[in-house]
């Protein structure tokens, strides 16, 4: 498989050089084409930091990160990110927020708006185009976050705990929609990397689950999930994998 993202010996520390706190320690990892990778681990294992390193939001202390064979130096143009806290701009309307995803792309004003409206509709937000974020429910806000990420047709979609600020019912709903998008090859990104602390969620959605250890974060296991899609979230096959991973973490 051709790797889209590759991490070689990546170490990330925070704090002073005298007393560094090692957050991630010698991470080797690749994300292949058309692969949905889940990253799980207890809190403090550096999951979110790992995602931000891929995006190019922070730089590794040691080691290299490659995107399509090129070293990641700055924020990656081919990737888009969905945030746990949604990170949508409170003073912009839904459609303006979605349009932000096209920033730096050579589209005319009209084209921009048309694409934004199309994506808004794709995410089931029609009727809320001119609404402000504080008028929306949590689930709606994350739909805006997803729309903003997907509008630019990114090669890689990075999701940082995308469902953990939502109520369980909304989360279940949105998970299904993301999986629908994933199965639709015409709109799906080449790869998805999702950070979560919910093992069931990771196993249900991902092709491969990477388990991190806490403090410092190291890769404990790389677990392939070979259950055919569409999956049954309650199947015993799925729970065998969940139990295996939970055993690693606990």
């Amino acid at each position, binding site marked *: 498989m051709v790797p889209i993202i590759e991490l070689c010996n990546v170490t990330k520390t*925070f*704090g002073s050089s005298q007393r560094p*706190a090692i*957050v991630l320690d010698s991470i080797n990892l690749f994300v292949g084409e058309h692969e949905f990778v889940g990253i799980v681990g207890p*809190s*403090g294992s550096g999951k*979110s*930091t790992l995602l*931000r390193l891929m*995006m190019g*939001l922070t730089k590794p202390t040691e080691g290299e990160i490659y995107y399509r064979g090129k070293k990641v130096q700055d*924020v990656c*143009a081919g*990737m*888009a*990110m969905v*945030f*746990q*806290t*949604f*990170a*949508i*701009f*409170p*003073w*912009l309307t839904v459609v303006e927020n979605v349009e*932000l*995803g096209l*920033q*730096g792309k050579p589209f005319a004003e009209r084209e921009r708006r048309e694409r934004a409206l199309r994506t808004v509709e794709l995410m089931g937000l029609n009727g809320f185009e001119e609404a*402000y*974020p*504080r008028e929306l429910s949590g689930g709606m*806000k994350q739909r805006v976050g997803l729309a*903003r990420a997907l509008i630019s047709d990114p090669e890689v979609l990075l999701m940082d*705990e995308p469902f953990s600020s939502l109520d369980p019912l909304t989360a279940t709903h949105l998970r299904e929609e993301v999986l629908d998008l994933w199965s639709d090859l015409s709109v799906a990104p080449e790869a998805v990397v999702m950070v979560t602390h919910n093992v069931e969620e990771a196993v249900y959605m991902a092709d491969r689950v990477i388990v991190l250890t806490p403090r410092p974060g190291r890769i404990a296991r790389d677990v392939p999930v070979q259950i055919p899609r569409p999956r049954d979230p309650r199947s015993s096959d799925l729970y065998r994998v969940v139990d295996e991973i939970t055993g690693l973490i606990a």
Partner: protein
Amino acid sequence: MFLGNGLPDAIYLELWDIMFYTSRSLLRMFAAIVISYAFGIFYGVAAARSRRGELILMPILDILQSVPILGFFPAAIFFFAAVFQESWIGIELAAVFLIFTSQAWNIAFAVYESVSAIPLDLEEAASSLHLKGLAKLRCLILPACIPKMVYNGMMSWAGGWYFLVAAEMITLGSRTYSLPGIGRYLAEATYSGNYQETIWGLASLILTILTIDLLFWRPLRGYAELFRYESVSAEQMTHHTLFHASRFAWLKSRLVPTALMGRVAHLSSLSTSLEPVAGSMRHVARKPGELLAKHSKLIICILTSVIVVATLASTVPQILRHTPSLQALYEELFQSQDVASEIGLIPAALGSSIARLFIAYLLSIAWTLPLAVRIAGSRKTFGAAVFAMQVLASIPATAVFPIIILATMKLPGGLQLTSIILTMTGMQWYLLFNLLGGVRSIPSDLLEASQTYRLKGFEKWRKLVIPAILPSFITGSITAWGGGWNALVVSEYIVFGRETVAVLGIGALLDKAAYNLGSVGLLFVNIAVMVVTIVTINRLLWRRSYHLVLSKYRMDY
């Protein structure tokens, strides 16, 4: 005299004198800030905790805040000189009182705002743990106030230094009460043209201010950080817990949660097995405390009224003897030629003062906004740059006024320009620090989002920076105008050497009324005009724009 070698020992003597003066001023400042904190906590909590209190106390605070320091001169003199029979302690207390008037309101506002902003879930948690009265004050209300109290306290502290010169030389017409202090020393040295002594005095003052910042405010700032309750992203959180673990431990063992943890343990362990016994024991043990808590309002009311009545009873006769009668005030206002012509000047003076403030405001924005964005943008130099700015801001500009005047008087704008620059010294720092706070508090997830979506340059300003800092910009503008109004009394009328330099303005009229004519009546008329103007502008312009901005550019979503 006995040294004989001709070398003057004056420098040594002066150095010693300067140290003495500085420490006297410092004592005064500390006394004032302690009283300001006590007042601010009491007043702010009272205003935030009861609807009726809020309706009465907040407008009063608004008015008190807009009265310039000179407005408190007569009160200070009459009260303290009359009560303490013109003894040094009376004058000393008068000076402390005047410094207090430049510090207290700001702290009261900080407390009021923090208490009003306590999140509902914390309130509910406190209630569910049966926290009441003093325990609630200690575990919830005071900790919630600490961050703002520290930051506004620093502003107040700087404000105190700014008006120190005025507070140490209280003049009303022919009567002057002055005190040994660095403010008066600086004023006398520069106004008599002894610039070498001015420089020594300034050096000593700046050194003192820096030392106090290092030993007092800096640790307090670090401490205050622990009391923020805004939600933080996962990355920052690990950062925080990793590096401040020891401090948190200290905090846990000392302050906030002790009572909370005690109660939690108490409830969980006792309630199951020993509930009946413990229940009755608690009942007995809590009786007096409960009584106190239940009737705390009543007790506070009784205590306050006893204190107020006692003070009034012991001082009113004294004050009355020294207060000019209404008849005398009337005669002074309408019979005196001088005073009548001064009153005629008020409208024009007010207009030119507003114009002056507006220009000073625009000039302040012109340099603080780009600087704030630039400083906050670079993480590496942020700390150093802010420290440099704090040092600059902490130098009381009033002390270097003579230098500013000498430097600017010959410029094309002449006196008007000088006066505008002097007014700026009372406005610009409020804008700068509020803007810095605003830029810094842009949530990290929004910054990351704009990075991932490649917002740059003009677009970044339009979509992220400007909207995000608008609330702090408005707050900064409000405080800057407040500072500007107060600064007018020192920037429109300056006694310089043997000359008096003055421009047309409401501040200059106030100064003339106090220093020159000694007319209490005129002073009151001027202050009333000023207060009405300030409160009107606040209500009509600032408050509205604040609510407008908050309704759209609030950070919660």
